[in-house]
């Protein structure tokens, strides 16, 4: 067999064939296309269907956007300019820009104040969000709530200063006594802050100036996207500490504290946010002292904070439960007491695990701030559905306005979720 074969072969190659490039089908774009789009008949059909769907959407949307009119004073003028062509009327955005952002009653000569507060907010958040920035920037973060309050609401300068001094007093007492005994430091700090605030409150009433530097703006004049931002930022920052407390309370061995926390969390998570906003708008006023006037903004902040703190508490509870039991035992065996163990060992790890969840809650909460339009507050959606669509110039301009609102929310929420993914990768200390 072997020798017959050797004789029958007519040609045997003696040298190596030079290397040749792979066939065109196996490289570059054609290969990618074949593998990713046309690997089988079913896949090809799917690709064609998807491409057709994208074409249908783009062919109806692109002319609409590209033909858009940016400069007109009413819808009818827009239609004249377009002269029968399809096209958007983005002029409503340019003409009502300030209303969309600040609401329709915020004094127009004071728009620089919320804008400045927004810029300071970006500076204040930067060192919290990105650890590589210089730590000195945290000063801005600490001062930000007081500056922002002063800028947005105006009024006597003494109010934010007293509030700040109260916080400083509380912090000093806590850092002095808190090292030895957490409870003493904590309650002492709260007491100190309250003492400063009540003395300062008297002082503010005494020296109330006739003409404060910053014109006071009442809360009911706030509106537009500014209102959504304010509610979102305030409620998320307030509800994180509250959520930590609730989560720890739910894990506690003390039956009374545990029961209170469980009932609170389950109650809040069981009802829709709208009912809580109803509570804020029609019911909560009954629970305050008769002569007090707590404005709607504050009542809404209270209810939304309660709402989100319950959800954040559940996220953090997940983080606490995910920690191996050895961490708790190690902290105990080092002789740390409960506050020390929590502050130094447990919470830093548990919070790190909970970051994606907390960000999810924050994004959800920011989206849910649009619900305040239902209780007739003029946030972005309230402005669009109320004053702008009801005006004679712009009634009927739905898509441009809602598209703009959707775009604003998308940019913010998508940005936050991308940040959270970056942070997760950044904080990952496990083996890669």
């Amino acid at each position, binding site marked *: 067999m072997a020798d017959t074969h050797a004789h029958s072969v007519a040609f045997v190659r003696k040298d190596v064939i030079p290397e040749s490039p792979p066939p065109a089908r196996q490289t570059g774009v054609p290969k990618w296309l074949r593998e*990713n789009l046309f690997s089988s008949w079913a896949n090809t059909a799917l690709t064609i269907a998807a491409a057709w769907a994208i074409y249908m959407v783009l062919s109806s949307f692109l002319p609409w956007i590209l033909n858009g009119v940016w400069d007109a004073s009413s819808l009818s003028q827009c239609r004249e300019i377009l002269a029968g062509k399809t096209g958007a009327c983005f002029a409503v955005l340019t003409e009502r820009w300030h209303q969309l952002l600040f609401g329709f009653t915020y004094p127009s000569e004071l728009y620089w104040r919320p804008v400045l507060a927004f810029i300071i907010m970006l500076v204040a958040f930067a060192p919290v969000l990105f650890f590589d920035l210089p730590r000195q920037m945290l000063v801005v973060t600490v001062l930000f709530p007081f500056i922002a309050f002063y800028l947005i609401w105006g009024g006597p300068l003494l109010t934010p200063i007293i509030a700040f001094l109260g916080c400083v007093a509380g912090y000093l007492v806590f850092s002095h006594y808190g090292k030895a005994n957490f409870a003493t430091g904590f309650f002492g700090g709260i007491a100190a802050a309250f003492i400063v605030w009540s003395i300062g409150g008297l002082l503010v009433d005494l020296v109330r100036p006739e003409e404060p530097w910053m014109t006071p703006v009442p809360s009911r004049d706030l509106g537009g996207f500014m209102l959504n931002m304010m509610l979102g930022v305030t409620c998320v920052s307030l509800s994180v500490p509250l959520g930590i407390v609730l989560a720890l309370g739910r894990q506690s061995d*003390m*039956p009374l504290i545990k029961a209170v926390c469980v009932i609170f969390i389950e109650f809040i998570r*069981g009802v829709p946010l709208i009912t809580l906003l*109803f509570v804020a708008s029609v019911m909560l006023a009954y629970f305050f002292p008769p002569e007090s006037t707590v404005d709607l903004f504050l009542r809404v902040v209270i209810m939304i904070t309660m709402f989100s703190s319950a959800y954040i508490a559940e996220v953090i509870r997940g983080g606490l439960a995910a920690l191996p039991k050895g961490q708790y035992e190690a902290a105990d065996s080092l002789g740390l007491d409960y506050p020390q163990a929590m502050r130094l060992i447990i919470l830093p790890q548990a919070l790190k695990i909970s970051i994606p969840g907390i960000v999810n809650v924050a994004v959800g909460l920011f989206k849910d701030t649009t619900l305040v339009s*239902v209780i007739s507050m003029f946030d972005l959606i309230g402005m669009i559905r109320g004053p702008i669509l009801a005006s004679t110039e712009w009634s009927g301009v*739905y898509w441009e306005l*809602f598209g703009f609102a959707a775009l604003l929310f998308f940019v913010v929420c*998508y940005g936050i979720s991308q940040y959270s993914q970056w942070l997760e990768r950044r904080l990952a200390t496990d083996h890669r």
Partner: protein
Amino acid sequence: MTILTDPPRGQFRLSMLLSDTRYRSLTFQGIALLLLIFAIAYLASNLMTNLAQAGLSISYSFLASPSGYDINQTLIPYNSQSTNMRAALVGILNTLLVSGLACVTATIFGVTAGVLRLSKNWLVRKMMAFYVEIFRNIPVLIWIIIIFTIMTAVMPAPSAFRGDDPDSTMVLGGIAFTNRGVYVPGPLLANPIFSATVLNWVLVLLFLVGSWFGARAVRTWATAKQEATGLRPTTWYWILAIWIVPVGILLAIMGLHWQIPELKGFNFAGGIKIGGPLIALWFALSIYTGAFIAENVRAGIQAISKGQTEAASSLGLRPGRVMNLVVLPQALRVIIPPLISQYLNITKNSSLAIAVGYADVTATLGGITLNQTGRAIECVLLLMLFYLTISLSISAVMNIYNNSVKLKER
């Protein structure tokens, strides 16, 4: 705590309430209890004072008085002379209706998008990622309003269907999309067995339940046969017949026919009207929650390690059976708990109906009834009670499920 290091239990002294960790929790709870009682008493006394000043009292008698308003979409007979209680009931049924519908469609959207996101096709994968990101990052309220606007501002008026050469025509010969809602053909029975319409449909439902048991029996029989002989008999046409034939015969006896909506006067008559608000809410909730479900489904499928698929393949299972017998049962354990909490979210988000005027329980009890009677506290409390009941019962179902599929570790 080990027994050896514990100090011997001495006489209890009062100072131990602060210094001894064994008793300190009692102190804390005592303080907490006092604070709690104080807070509740403070709030209650404020409430009493405020109510007395406003000349109000807590009373639920308004529930029995006539409501005085009409509701455009009701599942049970209702008119403006009905009581507020019945208005609330109409609202509750409407909430359950829209939530139920949205749960079904959201699951369909979500599972489709979640599976397609793992597709080998690059274009489809990216399209689904785009869908998920767009819908997850924009408030559901905006989606509800946008779809409601499509329903009211873009759809033609009923008069557009008039004439020999109308501007609009019915889709599939029987479905009319108008700016007053969508009209679909309604099923009618020519010679019903019971006089009450509902009972007839209950009978149909009973037949379907019977078919389900029948189909299960066939499957059990097939499995038993497979165990005995190693060959699984072909059963799909049996199961198909069991599902279709009995119900088909029953419906034929009762004379099922479809009533096509017709243009009469200024509006359509006959058939079933699905109002624009219901469609907007239904569709917006399903497509929004579908994006979240898609992420859950994707995570669930990705959570099953590749070794499972490979092991199943190396046992000789075909791809379809690998999916059915190995991957899905494990993935469902991961998918179902978040899926159920998404259903809960749908139920709670359906309260946004008030923004488009769909008469759910928030709009009837928490909206019109509250405004007309001024009984804010009572209405809001009842509203919360309803949603709490729904949430807690869904949570209970979820806990039962979680316990039943929990990995049994020994």
